[in-house]
């Protein structure tokens, strides 16, 4: 087999077969990923312009390494596939690593929710995937997962659809299509009485696991390296060398050799540090807010065309594309297309703010620590909880009613009109519900009026945005993480990680807080934070 080498800044030369290069990597569909940014961290870390193309190659590299590690340590009793089957499983697994993000929407996760915006339930992407795979067990499992609130992320489903439609020749039967799709979506086989499915589920977890997988491993390492964010070093070779299929109470599970424990803790630390210090930073949250609401408006603008195709759809991701009346053709939809539309076709206040950073609102406090320093003493624990709930409720009210969490004079006017509307339509709802709505609107009116008073008194425009952030809590679900197995060969023990590591004991209990963004007045002066904090604390609890 002929190979070509791609140079990755992290892993060095990645060897890829010439066939994969010409058929897949050089295809328009895969090259599109060069124009999908991996993160929206650039406003905070200007070098952060890495893309889904390189990430996909990185996941391919790590996935192959992880598979080899599992393969080389497989017990005799677990070698239940013949050589040909096993080689085929390996090939399909590597394909799924390479193509796991090929259906990503522009601006990565910011755009993927729009894939769900159609008139079917379940959304048509699920039914399309099931019809492409053509496998009864897969259909039945996907329906089970969907009906039990465990469906995959929209971009994962879309990646399967794009890959299976574009690279048909790489899949010779429904088992290959099914295993490929399961690896990307994480839909494990529900029938584990078949031992083969049990082994295949372990392989699926290598790419899509709630804990550590090669996708997450690559982006944690790559994001830190590209942004310049100082994080712990992750010895991925040691980690992947430690992967084993372990028999625990008659079920095959993915676990790690004891030597990988230090790296596992580092991965968890690095992942949580990225969530806490980058993803929750107000600058990043505001950038995400601008993009998401601009894209929502653009989606609506395109949906006004007579065509049934949406802007965020399978069709627009392909080379053939889709044509929108009066708007032209869109194909290989990527970040640059959204930016072009925002610059030239659709614009509003948020779009202008996206480009002109000096027009953006500013956070009154700039971190969770600053928020706590400001309000903990001022309010005390009980009032602080009430305060946070109040702002969570305002944000929710604004998003539900306006799709955007902005507070200004129009909102104040709307609330007054809405109150009249509820009174007029009182007969449509129960008395209890009516009383709930009226008490809710009274609260919102009070809080919004309070913010108006503060902005008037402090001489800056009445024009706020509220964006919630998560108080720091590990992004790993405790229930999933505590079930990770660690193998001590010298002791012949396979305990759960919770029994040997203290990493789970640092879990916090409090949930979210919020950032309040204000707009500077004509004098461009910063506000006096202490004055605003005192006013907020005092006025809200009058």
């Amino acid at each position, binding site marked *: 087999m002929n190979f070509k080498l791609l140079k990755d800044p992290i892993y060095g030369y990645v060897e890829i077969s010439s066939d994969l290069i010409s058929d897949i990597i050089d295809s328009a569909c895969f090259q599109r990923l060069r124009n999908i940014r991996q993160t929206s961290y650039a406003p905070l870390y200007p070098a952060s312009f890495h893309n889904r193309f390189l990430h996909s190659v990185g996941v391919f590299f790590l996935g192959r390494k992880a598979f080899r590690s599992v393969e080389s340590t497989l017990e005799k009793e677990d070698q239940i596939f013949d050589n040909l089957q096993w080689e085929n499983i390996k090939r399909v697994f590597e394909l799924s690593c390479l193509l796991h993000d090929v259906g990503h929407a522009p601006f990565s996760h910011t755009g993927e*929710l*729009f894939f*769900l*915006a*159609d*008139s079917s*339930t379940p*959304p048509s992407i699920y039914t399309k995937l099931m019809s492409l795979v053509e496998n009864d067990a897969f259909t039945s499992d996907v329906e*089970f997962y*969907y*009906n*039990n*609130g*465990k*469906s*995959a*992320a929209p971009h994962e489903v879309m990646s399967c659809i794009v890959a299976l439609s574009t690279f048909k020749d790489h899949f010779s039967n429904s088992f290959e299509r099914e295993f490929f799709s399961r690896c990307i979506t*994480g839909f494990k086989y529900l029938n584990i009485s078949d031992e083969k499915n049990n082994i295949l589920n372990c392989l699926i977890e290598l790419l899509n696991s*709630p804990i550590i997988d090669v996708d997450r491993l690559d982006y944690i390492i790559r994001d830190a390296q590209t942004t310049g964010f100082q994080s712990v070093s992750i010895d991925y070779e040691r980690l992947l060398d430690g992967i084993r299929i372990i028999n625990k109470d008659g079920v095959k599970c993915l676990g790690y050799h004891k030597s990988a424990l230090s790296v596992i803790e580092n991965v968890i630390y690095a992942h949580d540090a990225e969530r806490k210090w980058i993803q929750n930073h107000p600058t990043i949250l505001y950038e995400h807010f601008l993009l998401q609401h601009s894209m*929502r*408006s653009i*989606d*609506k603008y395109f*949906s006004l065309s007579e065509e049934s195709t949406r802007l965020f759809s399978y069709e627009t991701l392909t080379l053939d594309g889709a044509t929108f009346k009066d708007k032209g053709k869109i194909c290989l939809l990527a970040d640059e297309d959204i930016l072009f539309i925002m610059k030239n076709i659709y614009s509003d206040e948020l779009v202008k703010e996206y480009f002109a950073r000096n027009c953006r609102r500013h956070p009154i406090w700039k971190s969770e620590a600053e928020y706590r320093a400001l309000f903990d003493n001022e309010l005390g624990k009980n009032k602080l909880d009430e305060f946070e*709930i109040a702002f969570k*409720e305002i944000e*929710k*009210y604004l998003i*539900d*009613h306006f*799709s955007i969490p902005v507070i200004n004079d129009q909102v104040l006017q709307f609330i007054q009109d809405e109150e009249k*509307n*509820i009174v007029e*339509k009182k007969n*449509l*709802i*129960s008395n*209890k*519900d009516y009383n*709930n*709505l009226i*008490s*809710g*609107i009274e*609260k*919102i009116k009070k809080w919004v009026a309070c913010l108006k008073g503060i902005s008037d008194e402090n001489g800056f425009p009445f024009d706020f945005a509220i964006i919630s952030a*998560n108080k720091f*809590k590990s992004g790993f*679900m405790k*229930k999933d993480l505590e079930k990770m197995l660690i193998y001590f060969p010298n002791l012949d023990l396979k305990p759960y990680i919770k029994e040997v590591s203290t990493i789970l004991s640092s879990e916090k*209990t409090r*949930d*979210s807080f919020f950032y309040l963004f204000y707009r500077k007045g004509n004098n461009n002066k910063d506000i006096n934070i202490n004055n605003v904090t005192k006013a907020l604390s005092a006025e809200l609890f009058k």
Partner: protein
Amino acid sequence: MCRFIGIEDLVANALIELMEKNNCRRVSFETLVKYGTVVIRCLRKNGREAVFLLSKEHTNELIRNYSDFFEIDYSEPNSDAIVLKSEKTVDDLRNHFRAFLTLDCLIAFTDKKSLVELGVAV
């Protein structure tokens, strides 16, 4: 503009109805999907584009963001469910999740056809 109905609204409004009519603090994911499907249908009938968000990631977010209200019950095989924590009352749910709804969403959440899916239609 497409309206995304979050899992927290779906869960909370289902539990309000279940608690008030059946004194039940538990709603299975399967029931939630059926309930959500009819709620969405109801909103669409009135001309609103709407989708409900219920996936692994959204469920994790629900537990992260509303751990004071909800927890997941894994006790029944193949029927995971969301349970209202014992210290929370139906009034807590109403004050937090029903007071701030838009009127059309409230009507969809309490529509007779939606309640049929919860098994509490009168």
